[in-house]
């Protein structure tokens, strides 16, 4: 009877120690749902929350990637626009010789090519200004008679809203080039990360084409200084679009938009990191082992176990038999 009791108690104390050891090894209060169903289910929820936060943080990187590249590209465009303005102002000077005009034209053509290249900016195999058609470049590969790349045929379709197919749900229009690329940054919160380039770059390219044409020494009759300075836009301009000032403003506008979104992303990132900390804390409060407590308990059960063993050893070896001769 005594020995049965002792055996049971020893087994229990082994069980308790093994449980504490499990806790210490895994760092978690529970190893199976029945240890504490509430903790288990809550833990699953918290872990899911944490997973989502981690995913959103990952998405954030992608968002930053897009925004930074777009910003950088538009910045380049802005700088070059300044140069274009200088060139046009220089060209509007009536005293320019044909040669000089020719040189200015060459530089304008070069800048046009650069614009096209910027329009075809790629990050990780994606054309960032091609709307949702990220697989296709904005310009080329088709070229016009002068060997200049032309804007992708799909994009010209877009501008007049051509219907490309009709399905049960209605007409399918090509909206891709102006399509928004969206990335989820929080529960149900999606952020547009691209700057649709079809309009902006299309108009830029058209302007550059027009300038190139104006400055063409072979043009007859040669463009007058007024015609050229009209292209500068501004207050004296009679044209309402397609002049340098308007387009430069549009570029700046797009940059400002990106800047605003970058601010938003920054705020989102802060919020996510705060959320990550709080969820991790909840998760840890919920199921992490209090080490000092667990170790204390383990030491306590160890000493109890040892006491039980030594007492048990004493009880078991002694019977009356030992004393009868």
């Amino acid at each position: 009877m005594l020995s049965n009791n002792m055996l049971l108690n020893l087994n229990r104390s082994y069980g308790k120690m093994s449980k504490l050891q499990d806790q210490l090894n895994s760092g978690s209060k529970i190893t199976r749902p029945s240890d504490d169903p509430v903790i288990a289910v809550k833990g699953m929820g918290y872990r899911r929350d944490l997973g989502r936060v981690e995913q959103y943080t990952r998405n954030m990187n992608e968002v930053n990637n897009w925004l930074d590249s777009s910003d950088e590209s538009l910045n380049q465009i802005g700088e070059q626009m300044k140069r274009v303005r200088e060139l046009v102002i220089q060209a509007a000077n009536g005293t320019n010789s044909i040669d000089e005009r020719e040189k200015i034209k060459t530089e304008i053509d070069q800048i046009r090519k650069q614009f096209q290249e910027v329009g075809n900016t790629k990050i990780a195999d994606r054309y960032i200004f091609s709307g949702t058609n990220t697989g296709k470049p904005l310009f080329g590969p088709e070229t016009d008679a002068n060997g200049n790349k032309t804007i992708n045929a799909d994009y010209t379709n877009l501008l007049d809203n051509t219907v490309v197919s009709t399905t049960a749900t209605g007409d399918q229009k090509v909206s891709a080039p102006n399509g928004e690329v969206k990335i989820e940054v929080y529960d149900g919160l999606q952020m547009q990360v691209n700057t649709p380039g079809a309009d902006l770059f299309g108009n830029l390219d058209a302007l550059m084409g027009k300038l190139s044409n104006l400055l063409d020494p072979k043009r007859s009759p040669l463009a007058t200084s007024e015609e050229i300075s009209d292209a500068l836009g501004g207050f004296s301009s009679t044209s309402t679009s397609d002049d340098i000032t308007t387009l430069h403003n549009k570029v700046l506008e797009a940059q400002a938009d990106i800047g605003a979104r970058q601010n938003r992303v920054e705020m989102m990132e802060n919020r996510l990191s705060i959320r990550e900390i709080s969820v991790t804390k909840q998760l840890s409060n919920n199921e992490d082992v209090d080490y000092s407590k667990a170790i204390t308990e383990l030491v306590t059960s160890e000493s109890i176990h040892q006491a039980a063993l030594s007492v048990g050893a004493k009880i078991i070896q002694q019977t009356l038999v030992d004393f009868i001769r």
Partner: protein
Amino acid sequence: MRSTFMGLEASKRGLFTQQSALYTTGHNISNANTLGYSRQRVNMQATPGFPTAGLNSPSYPGHLGTGVEATSIQRIRDEFIDRQYRQETNKLGYWESRSNAISQMEDILDEPSQFGLNAALEQFWKGLEDVSTNPENASSRRVAIERAAHLAESFNYMDTQLKTIQGNLGNEINVATDRINSLLRQIAAINKQVQEVEPNGLVPNDLYDARDVLIDELNSYIPISIERVPSGGNASNVAEGSITISFKSYSTGDPIVLVNGKNYVAMNTTGEKSGPIDSNDLTNVFKQIEISDLDDPPTKPAAGAGVKTIKHNDLEPGKGKLLSLINSYGYGEYDAGGALISEKGYYLETLADLNKLASTFANTFNEVHKGGFDLNGDAGVAFFTGDGGTPETFTAANIKVNEVLKKNSSLLAASSVKGEEGNGKWAIELANLQSKSIGAGGLTITVGTNTVVIPPSTEHLEGATFNTFYQGMIGKLGTDGEEAYRLNKTSESLLLTLSNNRDSVSSVSLDEEMTNMITFQQAYNANARMITVVDETLDKIINGMGRVGL
């Protein structure tokens, strides 16, 4: 006139009786560790005094003692504790087996961990989010599809494992029934021996002990009641007789006699479909236990005669290992007319929940996926495949990622609009299915002009999301497990207390036996000395008398 040798006779009786007591002590010590052994005691009684009363008996002052005799050897046992002990074995049998079944399920579902179904779902949703940020990237698509495959395999794995264990439980029901049959047979065999021996005035203590051990074990399988039937003839007053064992139906209260004297019954499990329970056919859930006619050996009931049966509702809830096994494996519920109402059972219900989750998940995901457009500008195909029928039915066992998608990752419909490779908005919607509650009302997903409507269906998750539904399953498993473990532990402690009580009455205490040994030995020695004394007195009479002066 007293006999000259009367002193010798009285001491001889003392010698013999003390010797029997000493031998019984030896028997006790030998059996100190025998399971179920109860210590035995020699009941001693003084023999009738001299002279005995009678017309012709000599007139004699006083009544002279004539020694001692061993009237019987009795085992020391408390029937009341036995009864309590057996009630508790019932419960322990039930909860032990149940916590075992639940613990195995916990092992398979493996929560909380980084490898369970919850984690697989999580990974899949994350994969879809990655697709939404990089829709044109083949590698992110490939990862999402592989994670879907892993998810489907997790479903398959759990299904297989749960079914394997369910099958094992089914086998265990048969093993338990076989064991019950064997116990009944052994008890009947002991009854037979007891009946043969007792009328001769013998008390077969060791047979009683063996029978009690068998009854203890039988009680851990099913709750039974016992009744003693005295043997006739010249039975001793400490004889215990044969034992009648009967099972009392919980629902109707009708008793079924399992063992009566040397006759006993045999039990056979029957499945809902036909034949005995078979681990290869899990749909054949437990229907009833058929009981043969009482005989030695048991005979099949005559054709046409009503067969006695034990159904699930005849077994008292929370008692006996057999019931626990049946509860875990699965059983049919029947109305009064014997028609099947529904099938129940712990593993059966968990599997049904898992199937429901797999099926709702696959159906919903497929419908939404079909609403999107893939990299080639085509509408999405079915993402998961099931049994291949129309309409396709999904279970946790057959859910698979469509082979076409596995070969060609561009078929993942991530775009909300036809022909836009950089559009990941549909993938976001797919990923957001994780937080959609799946209720009876169906679901509508809209991105821009693209709308997918999932019509109301009878199969839904009562408004839970996929993750929370699974969490609910785990929560239920956890609470059930907690209950089973706790009650198992309580029963164990109670049983130990009772077992200690029983031991304090019946078990062999070496100290006590050693004390007895000394007592009996000394008594034996004293008797021997008494004989020497008588011998000396006789010597005086026979050899010393009449020899005055010699």
